[in-house]
């Protein structure tokens, strides 16, 4: 099976994962949840195979074009969802996360993103490409989990003061924090530290206020704000969730927006 058939299969299985996850809302018992979990795992294996195929065929890292990067981000999100589901039981949050995965998969396979291999320009030929991009995207995947949890928090009505809603909101708030606690160090290491090391090796300077650099710093500052208001100021809930949402929007802009709206050294894809 070629890379694209594997990707299509993974997409279909992710779709089923999400649907069984939503079915779990209406059923009691854990059966649907377990089915959904194993489906997700199967999709992840197929998706991994697709990435491996592309890597072997192109002979370069599977995140050098926009199509590859989005597919890899989707893969990282799946990894984040599976890890968090195992550790913290995502329950009703899981299908919404799969929705994000599906959106990324749809974007990756859309005809707007060319599927051809691009030979690497000299600046990208470095093992730092592997470290910088993979760790950054993995970090962003966890930040995506925090984004979804925070968004759900903001959308869960609090006027009724139903105890079930309260408990759910508390869980979402904690889930968002835990995801930031994983995503933030990864993002710091991958985007900023590895980015600086690579820049200094390729261009002889570790920081040049290039728009992509500035926007990853802005993203980082948003999450610094999130952590300080939360851990020192004791903010929780609404305000925290709002900052986590803004932070992820900044991350999205760093990933997509800078390439299309602002020009700079990072305009490779």
């Amino acid at each position, binding site marked *: 099976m070629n890379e694209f058939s594997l990707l299509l299969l993974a997409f279909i299985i992710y779709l089923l994962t999400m649907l069984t996850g939503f079915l779990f809302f209406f059923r009691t018992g854990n059966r649907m949840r377990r089915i959904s979990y194993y489906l997700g795992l199967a999709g992840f294996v197929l998706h991994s195979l697709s990435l491996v195929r592309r890597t072997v065929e192109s002979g370069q890292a599977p995140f050098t074009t926009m199509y590859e990067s989005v597919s890899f981000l989707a893969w990282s999100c799946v990894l984040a969802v599976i890890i968090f589901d195992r550790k913290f039981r995502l329950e009703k949050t899981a299908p919404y996360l799969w929705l994000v995965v599906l959106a990324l998969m749809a974007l990756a396979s859309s005809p707007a993103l060319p599927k051809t291999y691009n030979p690497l320009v000299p*600046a990208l*030929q470095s093992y730092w490409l592997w470290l910088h991009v993979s760790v950054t995207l993995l970090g962003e995947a966890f930040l995506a989990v925090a984004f979804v949890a925070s968004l759900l928090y903001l959308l869960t009505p609090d006027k009724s003061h139903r105890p079930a809603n309260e408990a759910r909101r508390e869980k979402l708030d904690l889930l968002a924090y835990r995801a930031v606690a994983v995503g933030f160090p990864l993002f710091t290491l991958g985007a900023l530290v590895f980015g600086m090391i690579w820049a200094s090796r390729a261009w002889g300077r570790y920081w040049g206020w290039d728009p992509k650099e500035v926007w990853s710093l802005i993203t980082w500052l948003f999450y610094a704000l999130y952590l300080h208001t939360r851990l020192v100021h004791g903010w929780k809930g609404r305000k925290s969730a709002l900052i986590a949402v803004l932070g992820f929007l900044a991350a999205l802009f760093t990933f997509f927006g800078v390439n299309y709206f*602002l020009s700079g050294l990072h305009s490779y894809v």
Partner: protein
Amino acid sequence: MTSGPWKFLASLKLGLGLLILIIILSIIGTLIPQGQAPEFYRQHLRDFSGLILALDFDHLYRSPLFLSLIFLLLLNLLFCSWLRLPAKFRRLRIRDESLLASGQPPAERRDRARLERWLSEDLLQLAAAFKKKGYRVRTTGNEDKKIFLARKSRPGLFGPELVHLGLMIIIAGGLISALFSQRISVALTEGQTEKIPGQTFSLRLDRFTTEYYPDGSVKDWKSLVSVLENGQVKLQKTIEVNHPLKYRRLGFFQMSYGQDWDRTELGLEISLPGVGTRIVNLKAGETREAGDNLMVKAPGFIPDFAVDEAGRAFSRSPEPANPAAMVEIMAGGNQVFVGWVFSRHPEISRYQRSTLPGMKVNLKSFSAPPFSVLEAAYDPGASLVWSGSLLLVLGLLISFYLPYREVRICQRTGQPPLYLVYTRKNPAAFRREVDQLLGLTGQKGSKDKTDE
């Protein structure tokens, strides 16, 4: 140190305000094109150009406003750590007297009794239970006081300070880089030697090659260079993008490349009806005898030919997209041909004048010696940035994954037992966990005042 202004400099309020302002300014900096001439702003951003130029937002990240925010952030980090560290060390070396002065008795009588039992009869069992969970336990027991203190992940207490220290070192490194780093561009053709300004050594380019992918895009540039000191070769190395040369305190980076078009070798094909065709090879700027009493001259070469509004020829780019040579041919002292000949478009004769009917001149070949542009960079702030980054990442890991935890149960004889549970990350959950371990019914936790 704890008076008004100092307290404000150390405050979280200032820190948060600075973070927000830095975010806003950074965003503005990515929206306004940076580093353009004042004219550019007057032309394209007419209404804002006055403000942009007055605030130095044409180089925002070096503007006094932005730099003073960064400096304030540095002070904020410094004072924040300065004010908080003593309390953290006090907590680390906490004495029995302080332990007995904080904490609260549990509200429920049943819980009080349970704690008293832990302290008196089951102290060893309690210590063992906490040790099993990875805690370090300290117990004191005599006639007038009983103390149980269990602590875990003590380095975690300093996680935030480590992060802040890392950041301060990074900012200091950045400041040093901004003030003292140097960059010099060195362009070398093969065989050329150039002395590096301010250094005792020279650099010679021995060989420069460009490698291509099958589709024609550039795969790599390789500059084989020799470092010469007092005429002796000290080192030879191939510099590529991502593979710089380090020598003394300088790094040499492959930045760009080009061709020295002023030294282009031209191959001209001259055909005259009745006489025949001949190839003349000459350098741009040279004059050459071509037989049959012909003198060929090539006064100029343009790699990417275009004509401006005034009718002057110029090069649109340094790439050989539309190569053209100016050719002048004299026959017996009379000019018989003058004009531009095009390599890609031999049919264009618009820019030519000839007095010999049927005379044709073609630009058959051209080659210019390639040169390599290397950038010598000296950055004394970089090593600080690397050490700061290491501390930053280490600090984050410690803060998130080694959170400090503390449990205290103390009792002065004749008084109710005091109970205190402390951690910064998710204290409610930790409190529940410890309550369960101690077999307490659970209640609202008391606030720990040790830090304040």
